[in-house]
């Protein structure tokens, strides 16, 4: 086993430790918030970024070109976002939101650890050797990490009938999307289109991945208009936030494995 894979496994273990500690505090109903869990989360996220930096040095290019590397990066950013949610003071702290985001990062790493996902660090094929890849992928995943938070808070919103709690969760969902949406717009659509023009001579090809990224963008656009312009705070915005995240997941996994297209390597 290479050092990189060993460190990635250690990061996975730290995510699990963090989840276990968070579960303990959730059931204990402690007044004082869990101090250890989020720090374990941050350590795991930093470790994953170190693993990706080591792989980048090994292959001589930014290690964000395979499914394994993408999942590791996404999980790392989700870990950092969850840590920020624990320590920020502008929004109400919801331990279940941090726990939910941690569990989604655990699922991402479990998929990355699957034998079906190749793990060797390989230098990129010519189509991926571009500086735009760094902007396209990193901005998209930062946006999608905030969509993870919005998905968890939207689910929590739908699961409760308590009016005050709903108001808090609605605000959490909205702020997560308000931060994630500009990152996603810039990464997936703007940088993606500029890179496509430079690589393929067409900035938009209606390739399934592009189309699904647009669908995801449209769903979140719908959310923002329903929430901000129509000022609805009932279940509809939360349902759209959940739908947006399901589209995000399908754009990432489903399109790669079910719909052939120009992004078949990504």
């Amino acid at each position, binding site marked *: 086993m290479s050092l990189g894979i060993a460190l990635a496994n250690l990061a996975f273990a730290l995510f699990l430790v963090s989840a276990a500690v968070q579960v303990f505090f959730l059931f204990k109903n402690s007044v004082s918030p869990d101090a250890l869990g989020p720090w374990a989360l941050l350590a795991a996220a930093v470790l994953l970024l170190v693993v990706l930096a080591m792989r980048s040095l090994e292959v001589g290019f930014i290690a964000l070109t395979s499914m394994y590397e993408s999942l590791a990066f996404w999980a790392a950013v989700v870990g950092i976002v969850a840590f920020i949610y624990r320590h920020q003071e502008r929004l109400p702290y919801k331990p279940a939101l941090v726990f939910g985001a941690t569990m989604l990062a655990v699922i991402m790493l479990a998929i990355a650890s699957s034998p079906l996902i190749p793990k060797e660090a390989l230098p990129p094929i010519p189509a991926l050797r571009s500086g735009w890849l760094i902007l396209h992928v990193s901005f998209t995943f930062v946006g999608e990490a905030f969509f993870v938070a919005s998905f968890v808070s939207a689910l929590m919103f739908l699961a409760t009938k308590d009016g005050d709690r709903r108001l808090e969760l609605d605000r959490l969902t909205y702020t997560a999307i308000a931060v994630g949406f500009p990152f996603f717009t810039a990464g997936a659509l703007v940088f993606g289109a500029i890179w496509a023009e430079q690589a393929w*001579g067409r900035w938009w090809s209606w390739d399934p991945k592009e189309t699904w990224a647009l669908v995801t963008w449209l769903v979140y656009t719908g959310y923002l208009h329903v929430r901000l312009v129509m000022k609805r705070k009932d279940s509809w915005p939360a349902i759209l936030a959940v739908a947006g995240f399901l589209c995000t997941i399908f754009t990432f996994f489903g399109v790669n494995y079910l719909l052939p297209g120009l992004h078949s390597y990504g």
Partner: protein
Amino acid sequence: MRLAIGLIAYLAVTCILATLVPQGLPTEEYQAMYPRIVSMLVIQTGFGSFFGSILFIIPSFLFFANLSACTVKRFVRELRKKSRRRHGPDILHIGLMALMIGSIWSFSGHQQGSVTMAPGDGVNLPDGALLHLDDFRFERYDDGRPKDWVSIVTISRDGKTIKDKVELRVNTPLRYAGLTFYQASYEEVPSLALSDAGGTELVLAQGEERIVDEVPYLFMAPDADAKRAVLRVGSGMEGKTIKASPGEMVGSLKVIGLRAQLATGLEAVTDPGFPLVLAALALIAIGTTWTFVQKLKEGV
């Protein structure tokens, strides 16, 4: 606003369906692929070419009209405010409108053509310049996977070199006179190595003709078993088609042997709408960021 939400929902759902129905297939393939009713529906509604059909174009036009009306109304409302103006959404909406206009311009004005060239070949460009392929390299990693395809090209016009030995790679196109050249593909073409009396080697790609001592030599193809070369030596009535093996003389040249030569596939693209699209994308990025930075700062 309800119309806007309805159109967004319609576009999202139909775009999803369009990724599930293979696009651009002949009618017979849809008939073979789906039950009769479904295939009829796909063919009659134009869903097989969804993004060029009225099912997509009319709602997109309505969306554009709705967006324009909203943008004007919103912009005027913000201008009337004395403080706390929010122009982020206006910039975003104007960016989206510019993107839709740019898309129509781009898709209608987009032209492309491709050419396969072996090193030494040249191709005339629309402005009278000549694009010459100086060399082509196929670089591989140690494990044999492709690392890069590099076409080294020179563009000259009226004897003047305009672009000298530019390395054209995947992701590094060459822009010249409104055209963008892309490294699109490569292939192996048979070639014939010959040598003259002085021992100087001359390599002809399949289909290439060179004149040596006023005699044209055209390498037509390898023969059926790929051991001998089929050449045409001379021109007109005096020209002869010859099958030659390595070591034999053809005219004043000696056949060295057949080789496989790498040829590059270059694609030339012109897209007059792309600068507007690029400006629109910048407006969208700025507008989105401005909108939410302002809103989050205000705690909305």
